[in-house]
Structures are given as structure tokens and as C-alpha cells.
């Protein structure tokens, strides 16, 4: 319907070129590998024979693996080099293996340095594995396979299960905050199940907002909840792919990829229990005023007015309120009403307790390994009046079975359920912000009290207590099956299927809660004046099939590994909704039990999407010194029209381990143990901005009401007013460049990693702004361009002094973006601008101020200077000198006429540098950092994890942004004493006023209102003690540890107006405090 005028021909030709050569290559690769299969299988016999010959020089070797502190290392792997034959140490670190004389045993364990030992005559080989601060021998998940960290060329970070251990959180994402640079995790609330978590890898990638792709055990998670509700105790590692290496996941990888690997059984059977009980206390109190503070603000404000505005009472009444006197007040709007202490905060929030338990049984034998775990958690928010929290139930079974020497079957069964239960209303800005704080929740008769005497219809305490419930359930069932077949020595085939079914159910019932006046009469208003019940189900059925061939070969110093595969995914979604209204409260809350007289509603909905992809990767390394990798993926997506369905993505990277070079060794730089340089260039895709069927023009159906006796009639319209997507529109493509180094120093005690990156999204899906006469919103087209640059650094120090080991780690990242092109985004408004060409996303354009008008003379001079203005939102003509409700007075702000055109105005042509707005930074978090401190001594261990943001500009928004933004709501008490007054002329803020027009001029979008949201918060503090073994032996307990674990116990912030630094810019819904968690827990192993 709409012709595109924005095709970028250069871009298309590039795409075309890739298309021409990429697909044949993939196909040829696959065919070649398939031919290899056949040969491989036919070659099997000869392999088997040669093996049989060597059987005669077998030698049994056994021993114990201990760490540098003498503790046994269970679960360490012992492998005969060049084979896949191997075993794992048991709980006491013991192993036994049958090998051949002359062969080499490789001992390895995550986080320790790998050792190789040549098998000689000895049958007892004890090994001490040194702790590796560098983790260079770590094997890291990289998508469809694993790689050794030391020879990796991409920007990848791995977080081990250690970061999740003993944390008093049941959502693993929250435990990752501050753990790895480049992955920024934010939340705007600590209400369990309602945290509003946002994950972002390496800052912004697109104006469309991008979340990382979460891949759990090799398969993308069907819902965000699949990750959030995992049992943290089931997680072995979390790996973050940050650069072009993520391109192996193609069209969904531009936001980076998070790979989660779950634990599998190892060694002899072991039963582990970990659990904690916790106390959640309210953290920073929301700065809303109580009755006295509220009255103080009014009195202070009107003290500055020639024509005071008292809204509902007078000065005398306010003076009484300031003294906290409760009683009947005469008001102009509501007659004689009772006014008393009605601060909701203390009655709505209190300390609550929560708990979390996890039990697992794991082990392995020659042929199988298994791990079975169950988890339960109950997290409760600080709401005092009713339950507001989330319960979580987890069950997981990983079971692997060796069918034969060549065939391994891997399986996983997951069931996880979360149930978030909250009051159906009242957890919003009516809690502490919307109404003045002087309506007690109950009258003397114990009835729920109406706000504003007879008139009101709000009372958050009543509504959260008696107004009904909102219950959300997610239950995810997931089954994974994978078969791995070793075709020949170097070639294996892997095929997997994963099915995930998530059932979401939401049930809401809202009950009418009558309100009463102070005298006990029924009030006119009630809560939920129309009662209702509704139920909704959403079903997601996700299938993922994957087949690949993996080839690894070592020839002398040459090491080659290659991979090629095909994957198919399909996601089906169905929805059903039903409601009845009004209902009688008979204590049973189901649609069936709800009589209804007025309305019954229902609706449905379904959709699906699919993806079909080929991918391949080739790694080559020489002497572990020169490293090279190339990978590619071809994705076809159902979201695009046939013909523009397919796109190809790739990454090329290289690395150079300088410390392996002779000329470097010759320098004898004893301090440097390891140094690797790496560089990569890749292109990944992004489709988050596109709907499922944008290339179809659809009809939106509805109803209208017509008729002399009104009745509904069908109505219809073309969706998007006929402005549907051009069929040539396709994915966003993000080019990613990365350059970095990894360094290990001072006997591997110090490690330092650094990456610098650039991202260029030059086909960003945007809706261009056209003149409104178009009659609708322009469809998405690939016509925006965003440039991102940033860096990450990690420094870790680890050492021991006698029995005392300790480590300090610091990581920090910053990302800066610039909108290079975006048609129509040349203009800007005062305040926050989502997009301005040449500036970062979320730019602040503020008025510059020059202090306050200190005297009437200054006021007069100011008016005289800036009378001629046209208009604008800072227009002085709107603040007429003749209007006492608007005229400027001493204590008001002096805005600066930046373009010297004789009037103060936001307007003007930005291209000509006109207008009085100044760019003052962006609203993204910068210098996001984490600081981790750890120590252990004898049985004690200590871990503290800090997280914070170095720079982020925010301006408080909503009604409580500044005093008397609106006169009818509660006010922010933190402004008391900080505003201009004749006796406080050096104040930070201008004077208070009860006139909103002037307050807008004085506060909104002025430079001093921008706050740096800098903070550092003690995210986690863990102190544990492992009981001596001798105490436990009799009880058959392998290991016992007790610990204290706390979350968010302390913070320091530069926020000036009293809000929690993590909650974001809003002020309306900020009644609910962030919680602090204090827990006691225990780990037991049997």
C-alpha cells in the first residue's frame, strides 16, 4: 500500500552480495560434512581395530586431586590427552583411570590451572591443582559448543555459580547485578515478581530497545520468566556474549546473548541442601510528606505570595495542621471534615519474612550422570496490609546416558512455576502520593474512612486489604533431548529437540469496599464501585530443533575446529480472556461462582512466528598463539514477506597470544604471565522493532454503539490507517567491532581484561516523522542510524597470606551512543528527548539558569529585558506581571537568554543554534561498576559485592517532581528548608509557590533540576562458616556451612530529593520502598 522512498541502495547491494555467496557456502559445507559422516562411519572399524591393539599396554592409574590449600577437589576432570576417555574425581578428590604408558593425563577443573602428567610406571599420581585467578583454562560456552578461554577471540565473560551461591535471592538475574561488565541489569522496584527488570549488554543498540537473547542449555528461552524463575542453585555458569561472536545467533543477537548452563551430576552420589530464611525491611523511605510537613510546605509557599492560595482551607487551618492537631476542620470544598495524621507510609509498609530452599541429588557413573533438584521460595514484599509477593516452585532433572562408546543421550526436564500474588488495586500512586496525608485510614468506628470527608473514593490501606486480589501464574514445562554421535575420531554429530510450554494465567477480582465518613455514615464514594472478576490464560508453545556436525582436528601445532548446523524454531501463542461484572462477594472467586447482572466479556487471540537457520563456525589456531575464527548464520524469519525473509550474519575475529612468542619470552618480562590481544568484526541482527505480521495489512474489528435504544454494531478499520510495512523492510543490522586484551600478571595473581567496542546500527527500524497530514504513524523502515562506542575493564587480584586468602575484583563499563540519522528528529523540546540527531538517545535539553531574582528591582529589570517574546513554554508573557497568580517575584528563577534574541523560549531553529535550551547529558547509566571483595580464613568466608552507577542524569517526573507541581496531591517533604526565602537567599532551589504555572517556570526543565543518579550499593554481603569435618563425621554430613547473607544493606547516593537511586525518574508510583534483606542460611551436603 505504501511505497517506500527510503531504500538505501548501498545497503541493499551489500546485502545482496552476501546473499549470493553465503548460502551456497553453507550448503556446500553441510554436504561436505555429510560426506565426511559416511566416510567417518565406514572408517570406524579401522579405528576400533587400532584401539584393540593398544589395549595390551594398559596401565591403571589412580590418585587424589587436591587444591593449593590441601582440600580435595571433587568433580575435577581427568582425561587422556587426544581422546575422549576420561573420568571425574569423586567427593574426596579420588580418581582411577585406565591408561597407557606414555600417554598424557590432563587434570582440569574450572577456576584452576590445568596440569598434564605423562603416565609412566607409577600407578599413584597425586596432583595439586593451583587456583587460577585467570581462568584461562576455563572452558566457556560460546553457542553450539565450548571454547577454551585462553584461545578465545571474542568478548565473552563468564560468571560461575559462585556468584549465585548463598545469595538470598530467588531470581538469578538479580544476583548478576554488578557481576560482569557490559551486562547492565536495572530494576525499578524490589517488589517480588514486579521488579521490572531490564537487562542490557553494552548499552543501547537501537531506538527500539533491545534485550539480550537468553539461551538456556543451548536453547533460547521461550519467555523472560524462564530465566527469572530459575532456581539459582541449578545454574552452573552464565556466559555473556557481547561482541560479534553473538552473530552465531543471527537475527536476535544484536542485543548480545546470555548463555545459561545448568548443573549436571558429577562423581559419587551427593545430596545438597541449601536454604535461607530472611527478613525484609523497608529501605529508603519515600519522601512524601506527613501532615505537619505538608502544612509546612503550604505555609512556606504562601508566605511568599501576595495573593495566597490556600486551596481548601486557610492559614489558620494550616497552622493547626502544622502542629499536628487532629480534629474537625472547616474546608471550602468538603465542608467540615476530620483531618488527622493520615500518612499512609507507616501503616502500609512493615518488615516481612521470606524463605528459600533448594535440595538436589546428583551423581554419576560410567554410563550415566544425573542431577535432580527441587526448589521452593516465598518472597514477600514490604506491604503490611496484605500478602504481596511471589512463590516459586522448581523441579529439574538432568539425566545423561551413554548408549554406547559413540552415542550419548543428554536429557533435561524442567518444571518451574511462579505465582505472584498482589492486591488488585492500591499499589500505585494512591499509596502515599496522590492525596494529602491527612485522611486516617479508619474512622473511630473502625470503618474504612473516605478521603475528603464524604466525597472521596481512595484509600490505599482499605483497597489493598479488602479490595480483592490479582494473581499471576506462570508454569513452564520444558523437555530437552539431545543425541551426540561420535562419527569418527574428530567428527561428531549432534541433534537436539527442545519443547517449552508456558502457561500463563492471571486471575483478578475486584471487590467493592464501602467507605465511611468520620461520623460513621456511608460516604458517596466507594472503592471499586463496580466489582468484577476476570481470568486470562496465555499459552506459549515453543519448539526448537537443531542438528549440527562438529569437527576438531589437531595436526602438530595446528588446531582446527569447525561446526555447521541447521536449526528450526516455532513459537505459537494463544490467549483467552473472560470477565464478569459486577459480582457478589460470596467468598469464592471464580467466574463460575460469580453471578453477574451487567456484563460478561470475553476475547481471544493467537499468533505464531518461526525461524529457520543455517549456521557454521570455523576456528583455527597455530601453536595456541595465532588464533582465528570466522562464523556465520543465515536466518529466515516468518516476520518478513517471502522474498525478503532471509538475512546473513557473520563475525570474523583474531587473537594473538604474545606471551607465547619467543621474542617476548626473550624479554624476560617476569611480571607478565599471559598477554593476548584480540580483535573482531561482526554483523548481527535485530528484529525487536517489528511485529509478527507487519507486512500484512489487517482489519481491526471493534464495535460502536448506535440506535434509538442503544445497541452495539460491528465496526472495522484498516489497521494502522493503511500505513503498513513495506515488504522490503527487513532486520536491523548492527556492525560490531571489538578490540581488547587479556593480561595475567605477578604469578597469575593479578588479571586485567580490557575491551573497546563500537557498534553501528545503520538500518535501524524507525518510524520516520512525516507531516501529520499523512494521517497516521509512518510504518517502520530501515532508515535510522545509531553509533555506539564503549569500553569495559575488569581487574582482579587474588592472593593468600598463610591461611588467609582474599580477592578483590573491580569491573566498570561505559557506553556512549549517538543518533547519526533519524529523519524528523532535528527538533527538540525542553526536558528529556528520546531522540535528537547528533545526540545520544535520551538527551536532556535544559534551560540554563543564573541564580534567582533577589529583589523586586531585579524582577522589574528582568521583565523589562524580556518583554518582546513570542511564546514558548518558558514565555514570560504567560507569566503576566499583572496576574498575581503568575507574575515573577523575588526568589524566582532567572533563565538565561542563550541565543540573545530578547526572549526566553524553548523554541527556535536548532540548526541555527537558536533557542534557549542547552544539552546537558543523557539519561543512560554511565560508568556502571561492580566491586567484589572476598576472603576466607580457616572455615570462615566473606564476600561483599557492591554495584553502582557513576553517572546518570535524571529529572524527577510526575506530580511530585517538585513542590506544588499540582496543589491537590501530597508533596515531597525533602524540599523543606532547601528553597529560597528572604532569609535563605542562597538556597539550592527557587522559592516555593502555590501557583502551578509559575512553579513550572521555576522548576521544570531548569538545569539545577537535573540530578546525577550516582550511587553505590552493597548488593550483597555474605559471611559464612564451614563447620570442621570432625564435628560432622558422626552425623554422616559431608559438609555443613552456616552463613549470613544480606542484600541492599547499605548505599550512598547523590540523589537530592529523597528517592531510591534504583527506582528511576518517576515519583507517582514510588510509595513502595526498596527492601533490605537480612538472611541466615545453611548449606548441607550428605
Amino acid at each position: 500500500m505504501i511505497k517506500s522512498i527510503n531504500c538505501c541502495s548501498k545497503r541493499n547491494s551489500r546485502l545482496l552480495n552476501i546473499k549470493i555467496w553465503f548460502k551456497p557456502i553453507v550448503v556446500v559445507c553441510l554436504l561436505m560434512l555429510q560426506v565426511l559422516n559416511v566416510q567417518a562411519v565406514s572408517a570406524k572399524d579401522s579405528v576400533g581395530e587400532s584401539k584393540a591393539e593398544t589395549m595390551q599396554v594398559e596401565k591403571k592409574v589412580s590418585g587424589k586431586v587436591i587444591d593449593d590449600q590441601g582440600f580435595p577437589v571433587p568433580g575435577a576432570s581427568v582425561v587422556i590427552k587426544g581422546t575422549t576417555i576420561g573420568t571425574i574425581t569423586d567427593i574426596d578428590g579420588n580418581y582411577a583411570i585406565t591408561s597407557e604408558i606414555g600417554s598424557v593425563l590432563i587434570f582440569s577443573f574450572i577456576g584452576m590451572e590445568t596440569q598434564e602428567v605423562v603416565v609412566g610406571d607409577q600407578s599413584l599420581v597425586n596432583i595439586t591443582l593451583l587456583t587460577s585467578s585467570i581462568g584461562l583454562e576455563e572452558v566457556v560456552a560460546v553457542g553450539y559448543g565450548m571454547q577454551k578461554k585462553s584461545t578465545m577471540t571474542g568478548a565473552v565473560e563468564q560468571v560461575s555459580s559462585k556468584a549465585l551461591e548463598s545469595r538470598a535471592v530467588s531470581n538469578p538475574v538479580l544476583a548478576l547485578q554488578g557481576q560482569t561488565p557490559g551486562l547492565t541489569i536495572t530494576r525499578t522496584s524490589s517488589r517480588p515478581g514486579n521488579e521490572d527488570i531490564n537487562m542490557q549488554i553494552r548499552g543501547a543498540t537501537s531506538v527500539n530497545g533491545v534485550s539480550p537473547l537468553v539461551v538456556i542449555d543451548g536453547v533460547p528461552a521461550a519467555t523472560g520468566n524462564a530465566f527469572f524463575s530459575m532456581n539459582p542453585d541449578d545454574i552452573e555458569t552464565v556466559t555473556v556474549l557481547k561482541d560479534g561472536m553473538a552473530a552465531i545467533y543471527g537475527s536476535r543477537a544484536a542485543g548480545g546473548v546470555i548463555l545459561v548452563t545448568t548443573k549436571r551430576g558429577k562423581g559419587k552420589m551427593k545430596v545438597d541442601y541449601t536454604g535461607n530464611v530472611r527478613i525484609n525491611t523497608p529501605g529508603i523511605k519515600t519522601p512524601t510528606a506527613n501532615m505537619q510537613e505538608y502544612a509546612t510546605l503550604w505555609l512556606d509557599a504562601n508566605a511568599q505570595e501576595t495573593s495566597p492560595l490556600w486551596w481548601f482551607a486557610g492559614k489558620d487551618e494550616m497552622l493547626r495542621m502544622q502542629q499536628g492537631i487532629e480534629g474537625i476542620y472547616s474546608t471550602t470544598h468538603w465542608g467540615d471534615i476530620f483531618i488527622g495524621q493520615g500518612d499512609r507510609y507507616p501503616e502500609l509498609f512493615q518488615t516481612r519474612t521470606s524463605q528459600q530452599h533448594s535440595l538436589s541429588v546428583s551423581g554419576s557413573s560410567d554410563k550415566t550422570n544425573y542431577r535432580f533438584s527441587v526448589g521452593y521460595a516465598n518472597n514477600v514484599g514490604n506491604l503490611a496490609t496484605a500478602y504481596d509477593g511471589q512463590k516459586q516452585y522448581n523441579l529439574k532433572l538432568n539425566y545423561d546416558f551413554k548408549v554406547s562408546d559413540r552415542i550419548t543421550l543428554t536429557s533435561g526436564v524442567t518444571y518451574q512455576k511462579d505465582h505472584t500474588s498482589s492486591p488488585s488495586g492500591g499499589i500505585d500512586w494512591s499509596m502515599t502520593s496522590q492525596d494529602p496525608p491527612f485522611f486516617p485510614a479508619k474512622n473511630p468506628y473502625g470503618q474504612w474512612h473516605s478521603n475528603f470527608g464524604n466525597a472521596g473514593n481512595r484509600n490505599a490501606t482499605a483497597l489493598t486489604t479488602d479490595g480483592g486480589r490479582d494473581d499471576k501464574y506462570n508454569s513452564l514445562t520444558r523437555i530437552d533431548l539431545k543425541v551426540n554421535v561420535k562419527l569418527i575420531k574428530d567428527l561428531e554429530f549432534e541433534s537436539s529437540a527442545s519443547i517449552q510450554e508456558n502457561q500463563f494465567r492471571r486471575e483478578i477480582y475486584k471487590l467493592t469496599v464501602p467507605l465511611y465518613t468520620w461520623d460513621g455514615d456511608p460516604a458517596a464514594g466507594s472503592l471499586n464501585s463496580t466489582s468484577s472478576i476476570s481470568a486470562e490464560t496465555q499459552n506459549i508453545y515453543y519448539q526448537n530443533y537443531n542438528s549440527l556436525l562438529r569437527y576438531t582436528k589437531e595436526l602438530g601445532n595446528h588446531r582446527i575446529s569447525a561446526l555447521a548446523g541447521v536449526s528450526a524454531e516455532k513459537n505459537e501463542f494463544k490467549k483467552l480472556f473472560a470477565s464478569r461484572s459486577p459480582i457478589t462477594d460470596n467468598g469464592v472467586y471464580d467466574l463460575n461462582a460469580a453471578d453477574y447482572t451487567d456484563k460478561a466479556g470475553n476475547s481471544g487471540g493467537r499468533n505464531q512466528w518461526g525461524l529457520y537457520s543455517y549456521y557454521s563456525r570455523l576456528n583455527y589456531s597455530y601453536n595456541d598463539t595465532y588464533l582465528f575464527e570466522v562464523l556465520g548464520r543465515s536466518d529466515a524469519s516468518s516476520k518478513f514477506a517471502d522474498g525478503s525473509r532471509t538475512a546473513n550474519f557473520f563475525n570474523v575475529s583474531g587473537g594473538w597470544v604474545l606471551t607465547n612468542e619467543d621474542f617476548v619470552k626473550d624479554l624476560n618480562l617476569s611480571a607478565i604471565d599471559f598477554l593476548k590481544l584480540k580483535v573482531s568484526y561482526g554483523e548481527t541482527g535485530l528484529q525487536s522493532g517489528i511485529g509478527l505480521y507487519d507486512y500484512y495489512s489487517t482489519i481491526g474489528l471493534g464495535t460502536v454503539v448506535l440506535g434509538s435504544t442503544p445497541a452495539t454494531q460491528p465496526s472495522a478499520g484498516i489497521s494502522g490507517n493503511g500505513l503498513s510495512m513495506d515488504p522490503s523492510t527487513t532486520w536491523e543490522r548492527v556492525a560490531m567491532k571489538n578490540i581488547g586484551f587479556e593480561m595475567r600478571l605477578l604469578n597469575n595473581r593479578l588479571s586485567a581484561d580490557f575491551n573497546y567496542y563500537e557498534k553501528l546500527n545503520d538500518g535501524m527500524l524507525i518510524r520516520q516523522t512525516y507531516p501529520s497530514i499523512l494521517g497516521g504513524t509512518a510504518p517502520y523502515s530501515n532508515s535510522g542510524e545509531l553509533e555506539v562506542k564503549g569500553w569495559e575493564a575488569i581487574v582482579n587480584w587474588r592472593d593468600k597470606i598463610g591461611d588467609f586468602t582474599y580477592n578483590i575484583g573491580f569491573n566498570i563499563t561505559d557506553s556512549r551512543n549517538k543518533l547519526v540519522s533519524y529523519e524528523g528528529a532535528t527538533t527538540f523540546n525542553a526536558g528529556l528527548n528520546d531522540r535528537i540527531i547528533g545526540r545520544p538517545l535520551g538527551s536532556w535539553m535544559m534551560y540554563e539558569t543564573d541564580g534567582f531574582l533577589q529583589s523586586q528591582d531585579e524582577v522589574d529589570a528582568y521583565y523589562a529585558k524580556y518583554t518582546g517574546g513570542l511564546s514558548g513554554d518558558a514565555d514570560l508573557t504567560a507569566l503576566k506581571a499583572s496576574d498575581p497568580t503568575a507574575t515573577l517575584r523575588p526568589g524566582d528563577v532567572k533563565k538565561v537568554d542563550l541565543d540573545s534574541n530578547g526572549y526566553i523560549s524553548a523554541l527556535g531553529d536548532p540548526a541555527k543554534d537558536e533557542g534557549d535550551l542547552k544539552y546537558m547529558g543523557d539519561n543512560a547509566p554511565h560508568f556502571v561498576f561492580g566491586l567484589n571483595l572476598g576472603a576466607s580464613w580457616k572455615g570462615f568466608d566473606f564476600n561483599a559485592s557492591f554495584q553502582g552507577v557513576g553517572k546518570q542524569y535524571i529529572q524527577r517526573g510526575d506530580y511530585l517532581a517538585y513542590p506544588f507541581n499540582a496543589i491537590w496531591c501530597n508533596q515531597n517533604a525533602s524540599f523543606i528548608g532547601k528553597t529560597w526565602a528572604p532569609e535563605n537567599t542562597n538556597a539550592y532551589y527557587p522559592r516555593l509557590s502555590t501557583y502551578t504555572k509559575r512553579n513550572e517556570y521555576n522548576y521544570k526543565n531548569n538545569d539545577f533540576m537535573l540530578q546525577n543518579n550516582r550511587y553505590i550499593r552493597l548488593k550483597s554481603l555474605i559471611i559464612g562458616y564451614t563447620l570442621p569435618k570432625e564435628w560432622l563425621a558422626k552425623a554422616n554430613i559431608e559438609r555443613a556451612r552456616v552463613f549470613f547473607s544480606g542484600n541492599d544493606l547499605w548505599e550512598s547516593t547523590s540523589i537530592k530529593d529523597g528517592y531510591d537511586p534504583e527506582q528511576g525518574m518517576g515519583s507517582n508510583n514510588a510509595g513502595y520502598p526498596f527492601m533490605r534483606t537480612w538472611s541466615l542460611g545453611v548449606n548441607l551436603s550428605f
Partner: protein
Amino acid sequence: MKKISILIVIGCLIILAVSCRNDFLDLAPQDQLTEASYFKNPDQFKASTASFYDKMISWKNVDGVNVFGFMDFGSDLSSNVKDRGYAGQGSYGLGSLTLPDNDQFWDNSYKYIRSVNLLLEKARAYEGDKDDIKQYVAESKFFRAWHHFFLLQRFGGVPIDTVVIDLDSPELYGARNSRYEVVDQVLADLNAAIPNLPTEQTIPDADKGRVSKWAAEAFKARVELYEAAWRKYTGTTTDFTGSAGPAKDQVTEFLTDAVAMAKDVMDNGGYELWDYNTGLNNRSNFYLFTIDGTGSNPMGLDKPSNKEFILQSVYDYELRQSAVQITRESWRLTPSRKLMDMYLCTDGLPADKSPLFQGYSDVSKEFENRDYRMISNVLGDESIPDAGAVSLTDGVLYGFGNFKFTSWNFTENSYRPDNTESSNYPQIRLAEVFMIYAEALYELNGSISDADLDISINLIRKRAGVAALTNNLVSANGLDMLTEIRRERALEMYSENNRFNDLKRWGIAETELNQNVCGMVVGDASYPTDFKDAAGVATDKYTPNKYGYGETVVKTADGDLNCLVIMPAASHDFQRKHYLFPLPTQQLLLNPNLVQNTGY
């Protein structure tokens, strides 16, 4: 054996995966109809035009807009001049207008026009009998005219939009059309629509609310009178720089046709004034606007009893509630001193001329012997306040209420709680057609006969309990016929979004708006009232220092008297440029061919 089985398994898996590729990719929408399969039968055209009806601005918020952005807030008739929350209407009356980046009325209008143009495009491509869909084509053209006229009233000449615009259409960057071209387009669409629209009499009950031939004619008469008066009194003073002038003098043509259109509706429309004065204690003018189920008035009259509304936005308590606080919002539309004094006495004379007027010595007095519309609008169903019943002690209220559009029994038994009020909103009603008829006729001829008054304005006056307007009454009492016709319009159409438009087309907005807006007469020693005693001292009913603007002497129906000031004349600065709203600056930047209105 094993080898073979492995081979088979591998082969099968690969073949399976590759062969079903399309099962993963060819996925069409499952819960939506597609455009390609629609617009194939008349019912689908009917459904598509149905979506135009809730785009007429009325109670419910649609695209961020409802009628409380208009009403008469901030006008000279209302004492609510400070409420600026309603699309700036309050400050608009003060002549305080800021240049907006964007204007939702501009954006929404073009959005609605596009959906009309889309339907017309589909209609042209319709392969069935075009006669089956001619009604829907006509309705579409009516709405295209409706939205263009809305733009004209707000902005003057605007770009005319009659095609479905593509991203590369030149129309995107077109210049403004002159107001004269816009009016021609509006009338052309209405002329095309009228012959194909059904008469009200043939519209089935279930479809009532859809545009009838009469509705289109009445609307056309409204447009013609509006534009004829504008050209006569305001002229080209508001035309933007570079605007073409009128191609020819169309004033007489417009007025002649307006009279004819109005007459056709009056004669053949079958509409009747809703007059149940006998059963409703003479408060028809109150209950008419709040019909909303049988509990909405003492006589149990429901919506089908209303034959007065010619075009209405339909609401229903069960099916479509207003979702706004109609009652509470309407309460705020309190009358000004000026409006209170404009109401007639029952003898048909203005209060300042009528011997029946009782003065202001107590608050009951000014209601005596007055127009039922004053009683209905200011008191609803309540009785006239007793002496001393009104207090001016809070600094907020000015002594009068507004009940037009508010629900009956709202506070007593909450018949319709907040946000559930569901009375129909009148877009065009018969009373307006009567007034168009009278005004157009007078403007056309400079006079109007008693007979013509009797078939129009006097029917309204009869319902209002006011004696007929006759040429005799005018001459005998030194009145001016045009002033009386205009007065009638102000009183009858109060709060129906007419006042600003009327003042502007009469060219008198500056004079009428830049005056003191006052509330109660408080009097002084020489004129004691409930609020001042014979010594001129404030009584316990009045706390002067609570009222920031104090008192001033203004002309009232009983001479120059001391009144409470709500907004002083000095705070008003309504200028000629304010007759039109500024174009949103964002649009000027996006399309350099657009010219801003003069003075901004």
C-alpha cells in the same frame, strides 16, 4: 547393523528438518482479517463507516480528546476562567496562548480524514453494485466535511486532504489552502453526500445515530452561516500571509442556502423540541441533556423520547459509558455575571429592561420571573435558593452553579456514579437549526418577519417560558433584533461549544472577552445584599479578603453595581490573532511550505 541405524537416524533428522522449512516460515495471521479479503460486501462498508462515529468529539476520551476541551470554559459567559486543564481553553479566553510543538486536534483530524479517504478509495474499487454502498460513501463524505470544518474553525485555511497520501505523495508537503477553498471543499462534500443519505424517517431504529440527510443539511446550514458571518464581520483580517482571497462574494449565496437547508430540516425532518415542561416542573432544558435511562428524570423518559437531537453521539450505561466525570466536570462550568444578566424575563424582555426583574437584594431575587433556561442551567432540579442561602466565604466559589449536562440525582442516590454517566451528546439539535434559520434570514434581509420568528426562535422561547420575540416587542422597547437573535443563541447553546466561534465570526471577540469576568453582585451601603449590610460592611456570608481580585463596579441588570471579580479585565488580552490557533511548530518544521497564522 549399528552403523546403518545411525546413518538412517541422521539421514532422517536432516531430511525432516530441511523438508518442513515452510512449516516454520509461512505463518499468516490467525486472529485477524486481512485487508485483501475485506471490503467485499455492503455490510463491510457499513462496519467501516461505523468506526467514524466515535471520532466526533464528545464525552468519551478518544485519541486524548473529549468535549471538555471545549464547552464554554474561559469564555465571557463562564466564571470558570482559571481552569486551564482543558486543552488550554481557560487561558485561551485570556488571550494567553503558547505556541505548541504539536496539536492533537491537527493530528487527529488528518488521521480521521485519512480513514475516510481510505474508505472512499475502497468504494471506488468495489466490484458489486455501487448503489448498495452509496449511503456509506455519503456518510464518509459527510465526515470528511466534518473534520475539515473542524480544522477551519481552529486554524483557518488548512491543507485540503482528499486522497490517500503515500509516503512519497507531494500532498505531504503541500501548502495551506485558503479558508475559502476549504469551505468550498466542505460544501462540495456535503452536496455530494446529501442526495445519497437516507432521511431520518427511513433510518431503522437500530441505526439511529447514523447521519441522515437532515443532519447533513443542518450541518451544511451551520457551515454556511458560520462562514457567511465570518466573511461579513471578520473578513480577511485573520487570513495567513499569502492566502488567496475569496474567489467571489459568496455571502448571499451561503445565507440563502443556509435558510433553505434549515427550512427543509424544519419542515420535513420530523424533529420536535423535547418539551415536557408540564411533567418536569418547567425544567425540560435541564432534563433534556441528561436522558440516560428511565431513572434519569422524574417522568421516566428514556432516549427514544428525544426527537430533538438531529445528530448525536450515542452512549449507553451498559454498552458505552462516558468514562469521564460528566457531572463533576460540568459543575465547573459556572455562569458569569454577564450570562446571568443575559437571561430574559418571562415577558420576553432582557432583565435590564423588564419591570419583572427583582434586583439582587438577596440571592433569591434574580431568579424570579426569569427564563426557565436560567433556572435549569443554574439550579438543575433544585429550587431557587432562599435569601441568605449562598455563602461567599471560601474564596473559591462565586455563588452560582452549573447543572447543564449533569446527572439528575447525582449526589442523592448516585443514580450514575462518576464516569458512568451515559447521556447522548448532541452534535446538532433542532434548536440550533431554528436559530440558524432566524439568524441567516436576518443577516440575509436585514429583517425577519414575526411569522418566521414564530416557526423558529419563538418555539424555543416558548419552552423556556419566555414571551415571543416580535418586531413589535423590539421596537416598543428599544431593542435590537440582531442582538436578541444572538442573545437567544448564547442562552440556548450555552456550554455547547459555540460561544468562542460565535464571538469570532461576529468579529467581537476582543470586545466581549477583554472585560471583567464577575460573580455575585455584592452591593454596597447604597445597595445592600446578602453580602453587604446597609452600612456597606461585609456580612457573615462574605469574606472579602478571600477573593484575590476584590470587587469592581460593572453594569448589571439593575444598574452599575459592585460585583465580585473573578478575572479582571486587565488580565485579558485577547487579540485578533487569537481568532485562530497557531499551527503546531513541529508541522512547520516538517513542511516548510506551511505558513504560520498571522501574529504568531
